């Protein structure tokens, strides 16, 4: 009984889906892949974000404000002044930095605190938490880590941790473990090493200095307390809100995250084409069936509803599978995302995924929503199906023939609209992507027309090559344009996406490689290991610098100092170079004249990178105010240089000028020139020998550094490449499913051909030729769209995200790969139907549909 109590129409739909398991599975797969990519990127991003905010929360604690010095450090006497004279009881000294702990492959944030002052700020680092003060602050190198980390490292209280800070080694005796009381806290503390202020000062060579002073000030502090406190601060020190640091960091990664998201949406878009494609097929296949139902008195709306219901089912199943696989995929992606963030921006360790509500909700909404949107037109078409009283071929083909031109016109208009969006001033990244979307949709609407055109060219060609079967194959593509065009469009978009991203990465790489070539003029580079690859955040031991400079075979040297300073634009990276006028050969100026190099050793002028200029909307002649140890100081921007090392931007200044304003002798990097006739590799060996025991530093030849830089570059693009691979996968499956369905649907026609004497071999030929033709068409069409996409990615989205000038670089490799991808997928798609039809008795197929 109950078997019949369910809706017969729904039953009929379900059975149809189950009778076409390939089809059903592929459409679910289409949704699943799209959702999976979106969800995994979202989860990766949000996990990275959560990890960041948790670790920030752990480090910032409940501080509302912080006192910071001009160049990363602050005289510790300021703390006494603030606490004793200023009577700010809720104040705590902090020395911060990074260290690597031997045995675990991640960078730890080192927090040097005074546990007695910590209670209002970070309970885990406070005396009240149970820290054994006598062990902690008595002058020995001791510290605390979270219990979970201790388990990971297999150490217990009393054991010694070997750590490395900027290439210098220390051992820290573990005197306690931080017991975290919940998951969140565990996550927050899993990359934290807590030390006493004094221990941290020793580690970072910061005797007498603090990184900052944390404060908890009452809400109305801005009015009375802060101005009063400011009068107690030395020049260059300032009170800033503790969340402003988080904001800066979040701003840093915003464009990065957005682009990842956009790429994941691209995967979903390709997925939508797939869904549209499969739903259209499933409807077209069932047109007679639907016609019969209509004849029996099923209304149009009931048909519409039932098809949409199918879509929801597919969407739901695809979404659920997509979300689950997305979570798995995220495990991989989060590592890549974290790696990129670590290479590019700041130290971050993501030990576990944060599977929040929003990524999943978004995935579900997009999955089901996209399925519904993509299915709406097929569903509507289904409901418009003619009521069939007799078995008859659909008249759809004549309809699309009429629609080719209007579609193309709409397509061109959409493309123009996309172009229009690009012209919107200050359109931002979102405008770039929506323009991209318009162009893609526009292009796919022109595809039917392009197919007809291409068929005209291809028919005689294939006729010559493959005789009648060749001609028939091409002809078939046009006669069934309503189906073939969708399949080809899906294929084109998917393949074009891979071309676009491929070309963009290529362009980027080429630009960076040629930039590195001109940038790296010296023969040998010496750098301390830094926790963020693209940011020199540690220092060379001064004695080492002298020793290396005096090494036999070294003709000349210059140094750089990289430091974070506060400017009127926020916290920025300032690089001081001691190269003098010779630097003109190293730095490529985008704007500004060579007169800059004559003046920059004497005047308060500086150079900013193009990314910096773009991000902060500054140009030549503008003033930049930097907070120095001598107070706030104005500098004129007199040059803008190309720089692909940092997407946050750098400010470059002469060391002599720097020394006038900063009390800082430290050196972050050393470049050495070999004497004539000295073998660079030998020199490197000699330098390495001499550096032993002083500090572990990277001593690399020009070539070695270039390779290392390119390696880092490639690593930061791994996520993009993975996404591209996923898009290729989606595309591949899409083509496979679309073409396979197309051929399977023609089983009756093929049976007729077989009955009329076509041999199984000829059938193979026919089917494979036809799918091959479609593959070739898709491959060819994907090239212009791909290049268009690449163009927008490079010149609009990249520019708006980061501000880089890139050389547009199309490698034939990427294009060949695209066409090959399309053709191979298409050929593969022909195998199963050919095999099936060649094997089946034509009579069976003819007997009834």
């Amino acid at each position, binding site marked *: 009984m109950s078997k019949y109590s369910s809706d017969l129409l729904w039953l009929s739909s379900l059975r149809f889906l189950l009778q076409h398991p390939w089809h059903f599975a592929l459409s679910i797969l289409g949704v699943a892949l799209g959702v999976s990519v979106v969800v995994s990127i979202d989860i990766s991003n949000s996990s990275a974000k*959560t990890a960041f905010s948790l670790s920030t929360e752990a480090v910032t604690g409940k501080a509302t404000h912080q006192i910071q010095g001009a160049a990363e450090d602050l005289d510790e006497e300021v703390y006494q002044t603030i606490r004793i004279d200023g009577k700010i009881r809720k104040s705590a000294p902090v020395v911060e930095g990074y260290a690597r702990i031997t045995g675990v492959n991640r960078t730890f944030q080192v927090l040097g605190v005074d546990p007695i002052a910590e209670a209002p700020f970070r309970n885990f680092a406070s005396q009240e938490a149970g820290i054994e003060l006598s062990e902690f602050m008595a002058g020995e190198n001791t510290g605390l880590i979270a219990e979970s980390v201790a388990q990971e490292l297999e150490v217990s209280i009393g054991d010694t941790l070997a750590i490395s800070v900027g290439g210098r080694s220390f051992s820290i005796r573990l005197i306690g473990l931080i017991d975290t009381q919940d998951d969140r806290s565990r996550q927050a503390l899993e990359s934290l090493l807590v030390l006493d202020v004094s221990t941290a000062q020793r580690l970072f060579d910061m005797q007498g200095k603090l990184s900052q002073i944390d404060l908890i000030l009452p809400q109305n502090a801005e009015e009375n307390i802060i101005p009063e406190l400011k009068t107690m601060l030395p020049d260059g020190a300032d009170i800033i809100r503790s969340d402003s640091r988080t904001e800066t960091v979040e701003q840093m990664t915003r464009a990065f995250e957005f682009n990842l998201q956009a790429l994941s949406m691209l995967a979903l878009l390709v997925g939508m084409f797939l869904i549209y494609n499969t739903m259209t097929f499933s409807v077209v296949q069932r047109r007679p069936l639907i016609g019969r139902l209509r004849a029996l008195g099923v209304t149009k709306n009931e048909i519409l509803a039932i098809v949409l219901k199918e879509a929801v089912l597919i969407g739901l199943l695809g979404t659920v599978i997509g979300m689950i696989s997305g979570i798995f995929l995220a495990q991989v992606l989060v590592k890549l995302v974290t790696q990129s963030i670590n290479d590019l921006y700041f130290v971050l360790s993501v030990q576990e995924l944060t599977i929040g509500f929003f990524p999943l909700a978004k995935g579900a909404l997009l999955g089901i929503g996209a399925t519904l949107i993509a299915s709406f037109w097929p569903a509507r078409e289904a409901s418009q199906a003619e009521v069939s009283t007799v078995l008859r071929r659909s008249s759809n083909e004549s309809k699309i023939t009429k629609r080719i031109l209007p579609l193309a016109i709409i397509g061109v208009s959409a493309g123009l609209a996309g172009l229009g969006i690009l012209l919107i001033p200050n359109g931002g990244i979102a405008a770039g992507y929506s323009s991209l979307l318009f162009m893609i949709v526009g292009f796919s609407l022109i595809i039917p027309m392009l197919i007809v055109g291409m068929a005209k060219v291809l028919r005689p060609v294939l006729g010559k090559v493959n005789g009648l079967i060749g001609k028939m194959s091409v002809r078939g593509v046009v006669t069934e344009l309503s189906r073939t065009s969708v399949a080809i469009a899906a294929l084109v978009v998917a393949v074009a996406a891979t071309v676009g991203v491929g070309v963009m990465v290529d362009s980027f790489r080429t630009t960076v490689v040629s930039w590195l070539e001109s940038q790296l003029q010296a023969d040998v580079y010496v750098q301390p290991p830094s926790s963020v690859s693209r940011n020199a955040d540690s220092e060379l031991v001064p004695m080492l610098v002298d020793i290396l400079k005096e090494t036999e075979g070294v003709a000349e040297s210059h140094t750089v100092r990289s430091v974070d300073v506060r400017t009127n634009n926020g916290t920025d990276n300032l690089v001081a170079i001691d190269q003098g006028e010779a630097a003109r050969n190293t730095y490529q100026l985008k704007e500004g004249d060579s007169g800059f190099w004559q003046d920059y050793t004497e005047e308060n002028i500086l150079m900013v990178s193009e990314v910096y200029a773009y991000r902060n909307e500054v140009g030549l002649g503008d003033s930049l105010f930097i907070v120095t140890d001598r107070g706030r100081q104005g500098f004129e921007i007199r040059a803008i240089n190309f720089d692909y090392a940092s997407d946050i931007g750098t400010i470059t200044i002469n060391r002599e000028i720097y020394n006038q304003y900063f009390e800082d002798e430290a050196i972050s990097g050393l470049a050495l020139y070999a004497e004539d006739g000295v073998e660079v590799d030998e020199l490197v060996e000699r330098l390495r020998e001499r550096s032993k025991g002083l500090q572990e530093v990277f001593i690399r030849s020009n070539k070695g550094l270039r390779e290392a830089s390119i390696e880092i570059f490639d690593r930061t693009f791994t996520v993009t490449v993975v996404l591209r691979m996923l898009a290729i996968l989606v595309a591949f499956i899409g083509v496979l499913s679309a073409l396979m369905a197309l051929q399977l649907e023609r089983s009756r026609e093929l049976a007729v051909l077989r009955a009329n004497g076509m041999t199984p071999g000829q059938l193979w030929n026919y089917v494979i030729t036809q799918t091959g033709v479609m593959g070739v068409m898709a491959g060819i069409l994907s090239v212009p769209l791909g290049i268009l996409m690449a163009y927008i990615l490079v010149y609009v989205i990249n520019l708006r995200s980061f501000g880089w000038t890139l050389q547009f670089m199309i490698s034939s490799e990427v294009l060949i790969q695209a066409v090959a991808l399309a053709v191979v997928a298409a050929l593969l798609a022909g195998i199963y139907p050919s095999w099936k039809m060649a094997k089946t008795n034509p009579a069976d197929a003819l007997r009834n549909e």
Partner: protein
Amino acid sequence: MKKLYWYILAITFIAGIVWFWPEQDQEIRASVSVAEAMGGDDDEGYLRATGPREFTFPDDHGPHPGFRTEWWYYTGNVFTEEGRQFGYQFTIFRNQMSPPDNTTNGQAFGEDWDTNQLYLGHFAISDVENEDHVFEERYSRGAAGLAGAQVEPYRIWLEDWEVLRVDAENADDKNFPVRVTAEMETGSKIELTITPAKPLVLQGEEGYDKKGAEEGNASYYLAFTRMDTEGLITKNGEEYQVSGSSWMDHEWSTSALDESQEGWDWFSLQLSNGYDLMYYQLRNGDGSVSDFTTGSFIDPEGNKTIINPEDVKLEVLNTWESPHSRSVYPSQWVMKIPKLDLELELATLFSDQEMDVSVRYFEGTLGVSGEMNGQQIGGNGFIEMTGYEQD
């Protein structure tokens, strides 16, 4: 129709997602576990008070690193012009956290943050009129200029709480006036100038005060039993000009009490006839009074008479149960010292003067009345009671 089915599906779906909703905005909660029996109460390596010694001044007014514990303990009763009474306690404790070794030698290590010296401050004001006792506790490392004790110039301080030598014409290196300044977070504040009115007293056996049978269970104990006090007290936003009398104990030791001893009752009394009495009884765990109970009686010129436990009859007349700790403290006594022809009635001026800080104890101002040599006398005092914690 079948729509319900879909709704149910959708709701289950959403519910499933909500299940994953992360708990937001929770504090990071953690505690620190340390190895058992680390350091602990091992006296190994510290200096010990093993016998009488010579004192040199001003050095011995300063800190004695190497001993585990040291304090500078100021108590006093002061009055406004109108006779309104305030009691105050201001103490800075020095705790050495690890035994002195070759490298550190027990000293605070100069400018550095490294130290094994932990300073602790207790500050309380007893507002007798309002029966209101306010107090605060502070900690700091004895380094980086945050807290410390030094002789030249004489300064004992914990951040902005400090005792600072004020030079006066009649000052020498043994007796000199100081200025005591401290402010609580609530704004309650003392700024008092305190000048010794009697010479320095070396308590116990020439400053060596044995407190237990065990070797080294003793302290070095110096006191100014009567000091003229003048200055300002601020409480509840009101500032009062006050004057009166203070008492200062400076004591250092590594271990004082024997294991059997549970706590003490410590009286410091300034009688209206110019005599001062210090008397403490150490209580054993079984409730009996320890043999090491002792006291001293200082005449107006500063001459000391030692008082032994058998000289004193102390009877508790009343008790008070602390609402904070449930500890029951004595609150009224009769003290008879026949040897001195002295009989005193003592009572806390109000009950709740418990110091509810990291180690709880009672430190309160006392009213004194009685007879000495047949003459009616009055006076002020302070009582410190420890070891009344309920287990």
